[in-house]
């Protein structure tokens, strides 16, 4: 029954071709360090799932942000788990992305013909850091507030343009409702959209070009 439907669908949309290209592609004999990218992808999916769930209750305004987070953590069934997964997943993302990058550096996998994979990877690293920076403010507790005060102040240190950058990030002179709202909007709309686009290219290239082998003494 299922096989029959799979065939019916394959005849119309050729999904097997896509499936094979993704999951049955040829890869060289590699080691466990080559799974760091997949591990990052897995945690990214976790972040997306738990993040979407968190938005069901989270409200990004100064008078509700903290209380809604407390409500999620203490009142809702499994709320502590959803928030915990998102919280620890965020740290895991940064760690995994960096390890993944180190693997690429040490095995020389950024070289021809994989330069574009590397460039998109660098953008993805910045996106992940952006997620971490904007997400950190959202619980709207003391730590969040002061970390963002300091973080935006650091962004404001360059000469001449510094003050403008600071004002744009904060949406004004001080940290306020405007800051919280724009950090939230960036966290749930701007960055996810960017991530999907760039990650799409990144993964397409991994599949299109194939992954690099472990380099040998000769090369």
């Amino acid at each position, binding site marked *: 029954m299922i096989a029959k439907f799979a065939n019916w669908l394959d005849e119309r949309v050729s999904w097997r071709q896509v499936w094979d290209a993704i999951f049955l592609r040829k890869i060289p004999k590699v080691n466990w360090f080559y799974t760091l990218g997949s591990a990052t992808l897995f945690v990214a999916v976790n972040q997306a799932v738990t993040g979407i769930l968190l938005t069901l*209750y989270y409200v990004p305004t100064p008078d509700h942000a903290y209380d809604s987070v407390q409500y999620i953590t203490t009142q809702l069934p499994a709320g502590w788990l959803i928030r915990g997964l998102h919280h620890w997943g965020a740290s895991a993302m940064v760690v995994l992305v960096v390890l993944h990058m180190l693997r690429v550096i040490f095995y020389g996998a950024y070289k021809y013909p994989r330069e574009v994979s590397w460039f998109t990877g660098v953008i993805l690293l910045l996106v992940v850091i952006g997620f971490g920076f904007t997400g950190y403010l959202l619980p709207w507790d003391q730590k969040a507030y002061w970390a963002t005060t300091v973080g935006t102040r650091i962004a404001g240190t360059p000469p001449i343009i510094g003050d403008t950058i600071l004002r744009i990030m904060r949406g004004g002179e001080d940290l306020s409702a405007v800051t919280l709202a724009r950090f939230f909007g960036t966290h749930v709309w701007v960055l996810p959209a960017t991530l999907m686009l760039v990650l799409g290219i990144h993964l397409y290239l991994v599949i299109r070009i194939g992954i690099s082998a472990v380099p040998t003494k000769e090369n």
Partner: protein
Amino acid sequence: MKEKDEISRRDFMKVVTLSIGGLIGLGWGIPAIAYIVGPALKSNQAQAWIRLGSTSKVELGVPTLFKVTVKRQTGWIVNEEELSVYVLTEDGRNYIAMSNVCTHLGCRVRWIAEQGKFVCPCHNGVFDKQGNVISGPPPRPLNQYQVKVENDQLLILGG
């Protein structure tokens, strides 16, 4: 013959991958469902006895309006809500307390003393002084609260 019974490495990996994937999926899915439907399953706040006021305010045979503010928590927001209750006694010992919420569509009914009836302004629902439906669309009598009297103070059970 033996060869045939053995499961291939490829099939084994397939089963293992699907099983672990399924477990992880459940690990997300079950908490997610509990998390989403949680607030819907929560029954309306624990009920508590709410003090209305002194029994001496209630006139014999005439529904008397009491207004109290109660705190009600929805999600992470605590609201003050005004509760309006009509209390009726015929003998000064047995009390009934009625909600002023019309059982039709939730408008507020008012006691019209001249007519001796409760009237709902929305769709002309009319109730007698015990809260029974006289005419109009309401499907059932006005809701009643459980009442008790302690030291000449009226208390109702509500949330």
